[in-house]
């Protein structure tokens, strides 16, 4: 028993001493182990040896820790902080060779210590096994695995109490440093060998020429970490470094230029420098090829994701720059195909639109322009149109709230070429791809069925990530016009707006030249069908007919047979006319006033001649429409004006008489004095007339100026604007008046009805004129009827009075 105790004590002493010294003097230890084994303590030996070796390693680590800290400091000083090392890396100086060398040295020492101790342990255990062939299976297992266990323990010990955080940081900095050196060298080489095309691709396998011996320490560090069993730590560190390197490069090199592809260079780059770097840190041999391939995929996914995120963040500006930003859009398309960023794309782009576009500060035309660009851009990214549905929804909803949306769309469609934005939209009209008759609305009939069938035949499932709240069936990405027309869900509104704009444009013409309008009309006809645009066609024909008739009328001499008995025929040389088929034009503003006699004479001469040509048709003049070119000589100055007939008429009265009391002139012209004033204000602002108010008189006196006055403007513009507004409201009420009998009839039959039912019934039953008003418009009109005491409104129900 005492012998056993002595042998054990000896083993303890020798093992501590021998293992502590680096595990060199194996003979003494072997002897001690032998004697312990001989005393039957074989099963206890491995634990003792393991404990002693670990303690020895700990002691060694404690010695090295100081050195490691110094190395870490050295690395940190040269790498700098994560936040600010995007640029300015130059000044921080390179990795100091001695720091690197000492890192390798420390690792090598550690490795040697661990490995020799493990080796010794294994040898001793084998020795015990040989000496004691008969052992319990559990003890045998312990003896056999002692070397491995030590390795594991050693790895944990080296990693330290914090689970390797220090190491991770140190390795991260070290790898970062090496990678940066490598990438700088690669860039320098690329710049040096300026036939860049080749250099870009060539980097793939070989990497840049680094100074001899540069790669050695790096390979050593990686290999030693592997040998220490800390591969996971090391991999984590170099993976982080490579990703960060890539991201920084992408952010610095490629962002904010939308006219160049970013993805392909990024992918090429990911396959060059980072792969070269990885080739050095990964173990050599056949396994390395597979690992490298795996890494290649990982890196390219990372590139897709990073480029995608970067581009998505800039999507709003990309759309603004469309079509110059097409390369960026293609980047996004490819990234989305290879990643699952769809949801992020939709969320980010929607947010950007909400924040930057859909607010009161943006002009409607800008919103429409951006919407158009977005439609086109998204057509590249997602031809199925599902994402457009998700992204465009808020824009459409917002545009629906704006009153001038349709007008803007129509203006942009029909505008002259000068406006670049409008021209692009106009060009869109001619886009032959567009399916005719197909707007984004639910209109019915055989066409719709056919369209639905066509649609069904080329149906494809939505992308998985599409917003399921919107069906994509109606969404044909890219057909810009139907998207725009579909904002309001019906083409009728659009067409009626087009008509009224066309009317304005045609009435403003004096030269009957409407080639462009004709072309636009032809394009619209392709899209909306001839029937819907019949009115517009007649309007344009009126212009062409007017031109011919005008020539014919003027060629009728005053002495022609049917006119012989007419008196007061005058020269109509200066008169031309646009003759309308009134039923086919939208409601035109009417304003009755008396024209000056000389003009009346011209008009009636023109009318008589027209009648002589076209009997039994005759003309009804619309005195307020048209335009007048006149030349005003005032003092020494001669001025040219292009004004409305009313303005011209006012001025003509001053030709013969220098001043007119407002009341008298108003009576002469057959208009109320306040309306007269609204018109006179124009001439006052031009400095042609002046206004004076005698005390005690309610109405002013207008006087012509003998010299052109440049005085302060009277508040005229605003009044003109108000006049237009009023005119608009009046006109609307006039249009609504057509429905009054229907409303009255309904309320006779039904006693009382709420507004929406009246609206729906009008929509259902009234076809002549077709009921195309909104609920709001009807509400306003009903309110007017209530005010006129024709109806009463109680509890939301309209009733007939009486």
């Amino acid at each position, binding site marked *: 028993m005492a012998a056993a105790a002595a042998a054990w004590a000896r083993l303890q002493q020798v093992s501590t001493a021998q293992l502590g010294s680096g595990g060199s003097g194996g003979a003494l230890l072997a002897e001690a182990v032998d004697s312990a084994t001989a005393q039957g303590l074989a099963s206890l030996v491995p634990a003792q040896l393991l404990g002693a070796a670990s303690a020895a390693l700990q002691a060694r680590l404690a010695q090295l820790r100081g050195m490691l800290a110094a190395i870490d400091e050295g690395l940190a000083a040269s790498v700098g902080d994560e936040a600010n090392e995007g640029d300015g890396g130059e000044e921080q100086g390179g990795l100091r060779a001695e720091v690197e060398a000492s890192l390798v040295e420390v690792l090598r020492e550690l490795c040697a210590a661990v490995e020799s101790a493990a080796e010794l342990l294994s040898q001793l255990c084998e020795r015990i096994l040989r000496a004691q062939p008969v052992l319990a299976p559990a003890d045998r297992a312990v003896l056999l695995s002692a070397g491995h266990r030590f390795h594991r323990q050693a790895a944990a010990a080296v990693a330290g109490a914090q689970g390797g955080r220090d190491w991770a940081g140190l390795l991260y900095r070290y790898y970062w440093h090496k990678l940066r050196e490598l990438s700088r060298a690669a860039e320098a080489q690329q710049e040096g060998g300026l036939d860049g095309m080749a250099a870009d691709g060539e980097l793939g396998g070989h990497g840049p020429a680094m100074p001899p011996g540069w790669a050695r320490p790096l390979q050593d560090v990686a290999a030693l970490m592997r040998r220490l069993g800390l591969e996971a730590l090391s991999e984590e560190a170099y993976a982080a470094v490579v990703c960060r390197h890539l991201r920084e490069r992408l952010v610095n090199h490629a962002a904010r230029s939308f006219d160049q592809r970013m993805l392909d260079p990024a992918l090429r780059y990911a396959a060059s420098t980072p792969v070269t770097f990885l080739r050095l840190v990964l173990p050599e041999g056949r396994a390395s090829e597979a690992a490298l391939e795996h890494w290649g995929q990982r890196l390219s996914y990372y590139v897709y994701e990073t480029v995608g995120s970067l581009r998505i963040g800039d999507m709003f500006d990309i759309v603004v720059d469309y079509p110059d930003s097409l390369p960026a859009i293609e980047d996004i398309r490819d990234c989305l195909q290879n990643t699952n960023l769809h949801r992020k794309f939709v969320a980010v782009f929607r947010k950007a639109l909400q924040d930057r576009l859909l607010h009161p500060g943006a002009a409607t035309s800008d919103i429409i322009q951006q919407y158009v660009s977005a439609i086109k851009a998204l057509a590249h990214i997602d031809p199925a149109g599902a994402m457009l549905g998700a992204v465009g929804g808020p824009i459409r909803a917002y545009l629906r709230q704006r009153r001038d949306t349709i007008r803007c769309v129509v203006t942009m469609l029909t505008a002259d070429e000068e406006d670049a934005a409008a021209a692009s939209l106009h060009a869109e009209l001619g886009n032959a791809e567009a399916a005719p008759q197909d707007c984004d609305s639910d209109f019915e009939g055989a066409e719709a069925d056919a369209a639905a069938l066509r649609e069904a035949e080329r149906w494809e499932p939505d992308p998985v990530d599409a917003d399921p709240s919107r069906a994509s069936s109606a969404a044909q990405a890219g057909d810009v016009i139907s998207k725009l027309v579909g904002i309001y869900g019906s083409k009728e509104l659009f067409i009626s707006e087009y008509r009224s704009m066309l009317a304005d444009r045609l009435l403003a013409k004096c030269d009957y030249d409407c080639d462009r309008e004709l072309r636009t009309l032809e394009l619209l006809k392709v899209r909306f069908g001839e029937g819907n645009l019949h009115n517009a066609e007649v309007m344009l024909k009126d212009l062409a007919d007017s031109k011919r008739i005008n020539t014919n009328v003027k060629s009728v001499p005053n002495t022609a047979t049917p006119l012989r008995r007419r008196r007061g025929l005058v020269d109509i040389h200066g008169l031309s006319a*646009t003759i309308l088929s009134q039923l*086919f034009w939208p409601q035109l503003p009417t304003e009755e006033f008396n024209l000056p006699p000389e003009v009346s004479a011209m008009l009636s001469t023109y009318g008589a001649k027209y009648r002589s040509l076209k009997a039994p048709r005759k003309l009804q003049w619309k005195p307020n429409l*048209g335009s007048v070119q*006149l030349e005003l*000589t005032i003092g020494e100055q001669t001025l040219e004006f292009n004004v409305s007939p009313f303005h011209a008429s006012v001025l*003509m009265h001053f030709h013969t008489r220098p001043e007119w009391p407002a009341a008298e002139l108003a009576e002469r012209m057959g208009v109320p004095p306040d309306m007269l004033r609204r018109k006179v204000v124009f001439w006052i602002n031009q400095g042609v007339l002046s206004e004076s108010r005698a005390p005690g008189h309610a109405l002013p006196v207008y006087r012509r100026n003998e010299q052109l006055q440049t005085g302060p403007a009277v508040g005229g513009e605003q009044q003109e604007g108000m006049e237009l507004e009023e005119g608009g409201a009046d006109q609307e009420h006039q249009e609504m008046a057509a429905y009054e009998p229907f409303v009255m009839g309904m309320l006779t039959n039904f006693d009382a009805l709420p507004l929406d039912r009246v609206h729906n019934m009008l929509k259902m039953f009234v076809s002549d004129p077709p009921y195309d008003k909104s609920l709001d418009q009807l509400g306003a009109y009903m309110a007017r009827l209530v005010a006129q005491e024709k109806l009463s409104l109680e509890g939301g129900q309209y009733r007939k009075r009486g």
Partner: protein
Amino acid sequence: MTFDVKIKKWHAVASWTWNAGDDVCGICRMPFDGCPPDGKYPGDDSPVVWGVCTHAFHLQCINRWLQSQAEQKCPFCRRQWEFKQAAVGGEDSD
């Protein structure tokens, strides 16, 4: 001391009408100033004619009516249909 207004060009706007009294054609119930169902353009392409009985129709409409009937009668008053000579313009005041 001069104040001279010289009209260089007056561009006026007018609408035409058949001046047919009744608003719609008795056959197609479309306005005279519009076009009959098969007409495309109003005015010259959709002329209005009067019978001696003073009833007026679109030319297309009355022609079709007369072709479909054995006897040439006005669809309104059943008198023998005869086209009235168009009034030569200028006499009646406008």
